[in-house]
């Protein structure tokens, strides 16, 4: 890997070197490095671009990194990654995509992830999207994540898009079984004329299923964000949706929490708030010695942590 690719790898996966455990690094459309373990297998798909990640029953305290790097201008790809996670697992999956585009052609990565999680498993999923580049070519990302969460399982998703993506349309869809729980913390920062659309859809199908979905967005410059959290309670369940946004400059945010209950024992709540940074927060940090700009940056850094 060259220096640009190494730097992007650090941005999306916080990796300085190859990770321990299972990994598959995809760079400019090809597999650049791969490692499997006794419990985690990674197999290249035959019929379309992408991989199958197969995690055996009872796999504990293991991780799997699957970062994608694009540094070639004009590269557009659509990749399918399927995760088959067994029963009684406790694993961490780190995905993410970084595009560096210094050329004049648009680059794009569409990642379709599907998770099939067995029973009583715990999955931590971390996904970072990042773009950079000085060229006129744009950077696009359209991730779709589909989750089937088995009985008694928990999936904790931490997804973020912090900088440099011109346009994104992200869809996350989850079906939650009995006693299973989905947690999503989604963070988006847009700037200049970037646009971002996110749909987080969750079906609470099983008895005592739970979902806690929190989206935080910051729109700066002339950027526009459109966030929908859509929870359906189809059984005795608990669902919480929260859209919390900060707008700056001429930014625009549309936040839509949507709830549907089709069972009298479904308990669903939503909250939505949009506003500028609270003046008293800036004042407080200024009393500690920060300038107004430094204070704003700190507040946003915390908000999107």
């Amino acid at each position: 890997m060259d220096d640009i690719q190494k730097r992007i790898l650090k941005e999306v996966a916080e990796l300085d070197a190859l990770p321990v455990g299972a990994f598959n690094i995809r760079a400019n459309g090809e597999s650049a490095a791969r490692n499997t373990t006794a419990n985690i297998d990674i197999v290249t798909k035959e019929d379309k671009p992408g991989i199958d990640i197969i995690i055996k029953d009872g796999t504990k305290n293991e991780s799997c990194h699957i970062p994608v790097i694009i540094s070639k201008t004009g590269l557009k790809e659509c990749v399918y990654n399927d995760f088959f996670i067994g029963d009684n697992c406790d694993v961490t999956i780190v995905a993410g995509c970084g595009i560096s585009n210094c050329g004049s052609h648009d680059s794009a990565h569409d990642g379709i992830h599907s998770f099939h999680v067995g029973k009583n498993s715990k999955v931590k999923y971390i996904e970072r999207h990042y773009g950079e580049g000085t060229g006129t070519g744009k950077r696009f990302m359209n991730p779709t994540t589909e989750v089937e969460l088995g009985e008694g399982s928990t999936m904790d998703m931490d997804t973020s898009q912090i900088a440099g993506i011109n346009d994104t349309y992200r869809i996350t869809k989850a079906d939650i079984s009995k006693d299973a729980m989905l947690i999503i913390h989604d963070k988006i920062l847009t700037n200049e004329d970037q646009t971002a659309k996110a749909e987080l859809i969750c079906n609470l199908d099983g008895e005592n299923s739970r979902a806690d979905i929190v989206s935080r967005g910051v729109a700066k410059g002339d950027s526009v964000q459109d966030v929908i959290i859509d929870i359906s309670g189809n059984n005795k369940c608990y669902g919480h949706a929260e859209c919390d946004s900060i707008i700056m400059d001429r930014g625009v945010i549309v936040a839509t929490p949507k709830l549907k209950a089709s069972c009298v024992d479904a308990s669903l709540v939503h909250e939505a708030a949009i506003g500028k940074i609270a003046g008293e927060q800036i004042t407080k940090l200024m009393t500690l010695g920060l300038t107004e700009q430094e204070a704003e940056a700190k507040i946003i850094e915390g908000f999107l942590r």
Partner: protein
Amino acid sequence: MLELQNICFRADDKDILTDVNLKIDDKFVAITGPNGSGKSTLLKVIMGINEPTSGRVIFDGEDITDLPVNERAKRGLSFAFQQPVKFKGLRVRDLLTIASGSKMDLDRDCSFLKAVGLCPRDYIDREINDTLSGGEMKRIEIAMAAAKGGKMSLFDEPEAGIDLWSFNSLIDVFENLREKTDGNILIISHQERILEIADKIVYLKDGKVARYDTAEVIMDEFGMRRGRGCKCAHGMEGESCNG
């Protein structure tokens, strides 16, 4: 050290501060007075959070009336709010690090929490948000002002909301600050125990300085001492319980 010259503050067509003149040179000065008399407003004028309608603020020989809050902070003023500000995502350790103005130093930051009676392990990574109780928030606010330090620390009713059992150790915090730091303290308080360790007391009424004298004189004059042997519901017999 600090001089206020003819400070006036008007808001909503009301005179909130009228022609306040004060010279503060003593190490520990308390401001007291009825609710709504303008104490918090005055402290905010000193820090630059409120801009006075007229008048000058002189700090250490320099006219700071037109300086923004952060420039005053740099010149050695620190501030603890009556109602501490909450954030989303920023943690106690983040703000303590900013307050101390240098790199993160866990031992140092923890010592500030210990001093206000909070177990550092339980609080250092807590977010400064609605999940903290009122008293916890106030203690963290004091810890931050202490971490910031400087030539003059301004506290707005730091003891409000702190339970009686912790109150004594909080008094120690201020006595320590008074003895160990070389900075001055200007503190708004209604509490006898704080007022009696002050060198001087400013009595503010209807936006004006009604009296400014030594603590002894003011406390006697306004009957601010409760006397010992309180037998109130708090059952702290033999002590001044502030209840």
